[in-house]
């Protein structure tokens, strides 16, 4: 299956770059490489890749700055690579517009799964889609109605807003701050406990086993991710 979806990898460590490139090329992606932020930005501008894979620990520029700069002129999905120790950098990167992250070390399987999800989602974001279906649940955005296994489910307005924000960003890690801002409004940035209580309610109403959810996943310390 030859497709020419291109991916840009900005990573300063050659062996890591090498294995990412090898794994992606095996899946027939076109891979461009950059070993610093400056080159990365110019590659991103000229190649217009479908996805950017970005290491947060670059020598010449803060990865968060790079994302902010890129977001001025591009909506391309960004997958960040981070060490477990820079929790706060990761959140800052997601807040400033990155879509997902991988914690080092990671396997090829994880990498490809994330890449596929991000590329699949983006060209056809279900923004305009009238209906989304996951598990037994069907969300009808036109009639604002939700059904589960054919039976209507009642959601409060906030539950519905939270559900639609999550569902319209499948696969994307939504930080706590982003969700609070979109659902409750900008002045509620610190009311994380509301978010957790409402996610619990969504799980109870929509998940088969709320204790082991399949769609409304927790990204500990970061936020939530909706998985189709």
């Amino acid at each position, binding site marked *: 299956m030859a497709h020419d979806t291109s991916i840009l990898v900005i990573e300063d*460590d050659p*062996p*890591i770059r*090498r*294995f*990412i490139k*090898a*794994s992606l090329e*095996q899946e027939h992606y076109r891979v461009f490489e950059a070993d610093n932020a400056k080159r990365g930005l110019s590659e991103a501008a000229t190649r217009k890749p479908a996805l950017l894979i970005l290491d947060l*620990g670059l020598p010449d520029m803060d990865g968060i700055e790079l994302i902010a700069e890129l977001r001025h002129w591009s909506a391309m999905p960004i997958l960040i690579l981070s*060490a*477990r*120790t820079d*929790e706060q950098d990761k959140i800052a990167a997601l807040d400033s517009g990155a879509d997902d992250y991988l914690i*080092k*070390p*990671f*396997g*090829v*399987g994880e*990498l490809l799964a994330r890449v596929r999800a991000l590329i699949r989602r983006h060209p056809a974001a279900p923004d305009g889609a009238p209906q989304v279906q996951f598990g037994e649940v069907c969300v009808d955005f036109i009639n604002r109605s939700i059904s589960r296994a054919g039976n209507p489910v009642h959601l*409060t*307005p*906030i539950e519905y807003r939270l559900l639609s924000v999550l569902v319209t960003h499948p696969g994307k890690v939504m930080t706590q701050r982003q969700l609070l801002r979109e659902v409750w409004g900008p002045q509620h940035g610190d009311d*994380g*406990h*509301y978010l*957790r*209580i409402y*996610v*619990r309610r969504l799980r109870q109403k929509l998940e088969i*086993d*709320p*204790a*082991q*959810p399949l769609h409304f*996943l*927790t*990204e*500990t*310390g970061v936020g939530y991710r909706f998985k189709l």
Partner: protein
Amino acid sequence: MRLPLTSRPVYGYLTALLACGIITLINILLTDYFELANIVLLYLFGVFLIAWGYGRGPASVAAVISVGLLDFFFVSPRFSFAVGDLQYLLTFSVMLAVGLLTAHLTAKLHHQARLASNSEAQTQRLYELARALAGAISLPQVSTALNHYLAGSTYTASLHLLDKHDHLGEVSTDYINMQLARTAFESGEVIHSELEADRGVSQVYIPLKAPMRIRGVMLLTGRNIRLNPTQPEREVLVTVASLIAIAVERLHFIEVAHQTQLQVVTERLRSSILAALSHDIRTPLTSLVGLADSLVLSKETMSDFSRSTAVVIRDQAKAMSHLLGNLLDMARLHAGNVRLRQEWQLYEDVIASSLQLLKPSLAAHTIKVHLEPGLPLVQFDAVLLERVVCNLVENAAKYAPATTVIEVRAYTTPSHACVSVRDQGPGFPSDKMTRVFEMFVRGTSESSTAGVGLGLAICKAIIEAHQGFIGAENCAGGGGCISFGLPRGTPPRIEPEVIG
């Protein structure tokens, strides 16, 4: 401190007598040439000199004796105290009055002059002490300055300062009475003691009052003298003590600042070493895991042996990265300065994400999750608590045989919100029940099960940082169970949604 010098008074009186005698002799020799008025003046001059030299008492005596001598030797009838002419009585009275007045005024003037020069010297010496103290950069220098100040006086001083823990520690020297020192310290008053007076020792305990607090006690010991300072002397001593106290306090804060700086530097060094270590080891591990994994998944033809070798390399590299994570966590937790990012959260989120993370390694076991309905919000650091749950579940999966059930339960007690992880494995050896949370202790030593026994130690460190409890037990039906609990506290209210 030097007190105003007062000569032995008896010399003054003797000198007064002698002076009167000498003046009388001179007057007798000159009596043929002198008028009586000049003789009177000579006597008055003598009184004046005595007053200047020896003060009021001897001068008054000299005045009275002068009048007597004048009467006896020079007023007719001579060599008798009888008075021929009554007007001499007036002369005597005036002479006595002038003599006494001169004695009084001169003595007073002289005394004041002496006091003034004395206090000037005092001020000069205090100034020198203050200057020496301002330059002092260590406690011995403070003591030296104090001793220099006291040199030549009849006291010796010793400083008794607060120790590191701000206590006035016990000292076992002969001359310090701890109880008095403590009383002076606690009351902030100057305490004078004659308890040892029979040994010729008297003491004054002066609290060292600095702007922030009392920093100790200055003990003045006088030997072979009575040390009972008068009010002005006391004031000088208190001034000296406060100069010392300010110097001591300044040194204390220099020390504190120095320590803080040292701590900051050490801390920065430690965390930069940890960060560098973490980065420098993780980067090659990342490429190792990734490259081995790309070999495993490679579509090129490869011998089974090569492929399975690649699997082993990948898994070992992963295990090593896991171990590194544990070691770094432990180093960070043990440094005792983990900053908890505590927020009000739900256990179910952490349990769900832990199980999600461990999914690949839990495939062989059945996981059952029991959540008590309506679990409260609990305040914790989600990332750290996820480590705890992961470690507990992973531990259970490691020791319990395949296909058995691992049960994760979240429940509440009146004071705590708890999580327990129960397995159907062999349980914990009863002799190691309390030691399983220690570092590098494993249920079965030298077993082939991977790990170095850091997992539970990390759990314990994290839970204790949250003021919670963690414990291990063996269940009645077999299998081990570890539970932890965090204090419930008062969760924030969730306002009900207004549906308009």
